[in-house]
């Protein structure tokens, strides 16, 4: 979409005004500074998704819209998870992070901060593998998506 002030609120406003779900939304500029790219994860029946697609296309700032889930694509999301890491848990978290290809990026005597970059599903699995009371805090970036192969939004 056009990299314009207010473009994000047009999209967010559309979703709230029409009662559509937003599970996550990420946006940042692209290689073309006049354009930013947004990935929205949403849910709904086939009819709702069709309406969401049409309504988004109607926004003047939207240049191109693709439903990535209609085709093979890659999704990536980053999570930063700060956990209580004392005693046996220190080893346990190290092992768990290794299994999920996560990295421990900050360490104190009582905590680890683990960075995990993967599909949204994998991140949910990782969180499920930890006891909720061991999590001090966490932040997720929301999903970014791109089509597999040579296909792109340009063509």
């Amino acid at each position, binding site marked *: *979409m056009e990299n314009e002030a*207010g473009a994000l609120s*047009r999209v967010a406003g559309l979703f709230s005004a029409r009662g559509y779900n937003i599970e996550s939304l990420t946006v940042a500029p692209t290689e073309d500074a006049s354009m930013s790219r947004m990935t929205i994860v949403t849910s709904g029946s086939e009819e709702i998704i069709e309406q969401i697609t049409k309504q988004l*296309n109607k926004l003047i700032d939207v240049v191109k819209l693709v439903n990535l889930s209609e085709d093979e694509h890659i999704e990536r999301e980053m999570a930063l998870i700060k956990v209580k890491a004392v005693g046996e848990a220190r080893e346990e978290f190290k092992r768990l992070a290794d299994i999920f290809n996560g990295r421990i990026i900050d360490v104190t005597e009582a905590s680890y901060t683990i960075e995990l970059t993967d599909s949204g599903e994998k991140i949910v699995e990782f969180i499920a593998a930890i006891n909720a009371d061991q999590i001090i805090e966490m932040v997720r970036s929301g999903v970014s998506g791109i089509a597999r192969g040579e296909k792109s939004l340009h063509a």
Partner: protein
Amino acid sequence: MELTGAEILVRSLKEEGVKHLFGYPGGAVLHIYDALYQQEDVKHVLVRHEQAATHAADGYARSTGEAGVALVTSGPGATNAVTGIATAFMDSIPMVVITGQVYSNMIGNDAFQEVDSIGITRPCVKHNFLVKDVADLAETIKKAFYIATTGRPGPVVIDLPKDVTANKAEFNYPKEISMRSYNPVVEGHIGQIKRAVTMMLGAKRPILYTGGGVVLGRGAAELTELAQRLNYPVTNTLMGLGAYPGTDKQFLGMLGMHGTYEANMTMHHCDVLIAIGARFDDRVTGNIEKFCPHARIIHVDIDPSSISKNVKVDVPIVGSVPNVLQEMLAILKDGDKKPDEQALGEWWKQITEWRDIDCLKYDEQSGKVKPQQVVEALYRETNGDAYVTSDVGQHQMWAAQYYKFDKPYRWINSGGLGTMGFGLPAAMGVQFAHPDATVACVTGEGSIQMCIQELSTCLQYGLPIKIIALNNRYLGMVRQWQEFFYDGRYAMSYMDALPDFVKLAESYGHVGMRIDNPADVDGAMEEAMKLKDRLVFMDFVTDSEENVYPMIPAGAGLNEMILV
């Protein structure tokens, strides 16, 4: 030569062919008013409230098909304009609204008369722009008119900080504009059009259901040709009246909640529904579960998001109405297949039976002035050729039912948003666009008081509008629902302490008339229309208990009308 932003704005409006600008001054737009003062190409019309500026611009647009333009100041000027902007948005009316804004460096500081106009109007505009650099101004105005008038039309807001109107830039008005993110589809998909024609010709019980998109898309002539070539029945939505001649024998009247018996029954029993420039609004469909149970549906619309939004359709066609209908006509003319004459004959026989019920008949011997009688008198006295605006409520439905519009752009009402207070300022816009035409505002004593201050504007500019007030001393449509669905508990739907409208009109320098005897209706109407250069406020004291029939109650299907 470098011009100030204010001068660029005025010059750009001239380039767009804008002749009238409806507005109200204030601090943030003083540079613009100064620029307007020093030229004569764009005539500014001073309204009495910003809501009226937007409604007047809207009325101008609805009666011409061209964009209406309004100018208001920041803060309360902008918020007052919002009702008019939302009204235009719901009915897809091309309009450009310029709102003043505080100095750029003050934005966000809670400055005097500051409001986030872009944020407030975002959900009710087709698009809006905040202009930060005077160098972008001319191009932004070009884009605004382009967006407002193309595709599915709609209002566009341009928010102009005061410093931008003072700063200078070279003035070059772009001749053309193209936007990578905005390319409305005009041509329909030819394969889909062929499928649609085959389905239409195979129909045994067809109906054309057509809406405001036929008027806005300038497709009335094509619709008439198509319908008459096929001899199919036609019904119009509230917004589509005039798109097909209201006096033609193939016309079944309006459909929907207060549509005719024949239109709604024909809809309910049809086997092929041809929807053109209509959006399956809830006031049209009734209970969606019971809507047209036997029909396969073709839907032509310029806006893809209107298709299969409320009702799933079988043949969607995205494109402009005249383009698609011309393609359909070309296929029909080339092909040798004709509609099924025998089936159509039986269908018309059935429709005639429904029509013979005469659902719009009313008691003409009651001794009271009937609102229907007043609209019929207006119709006769104006030879069916007036521009008729309305407010919202019972009088709106009676005007739609009893004034038979033969031409598009003649029926001007707030259909989607249902804005009381629309009628009089909209009539002002219409009168400016058509100075020699008869412009009638059919209203009620409730609605007219929502923008009554505009009687002053009408005096200033000598607008000879004929106000037809159906005064039943009730908020009639609210009262009707309370009678039907709330056991007659008339909570706040009565109008006590009404002004003397005759004296009120006279105090504004206009002519006032009160008519309370049914025998006087025709004579009064004739007398009022003879006063060609005066505004006449006709206060018709009508039967206070009269209801709008037929009516489809909430949850019912189109075949479940209350007739009396």
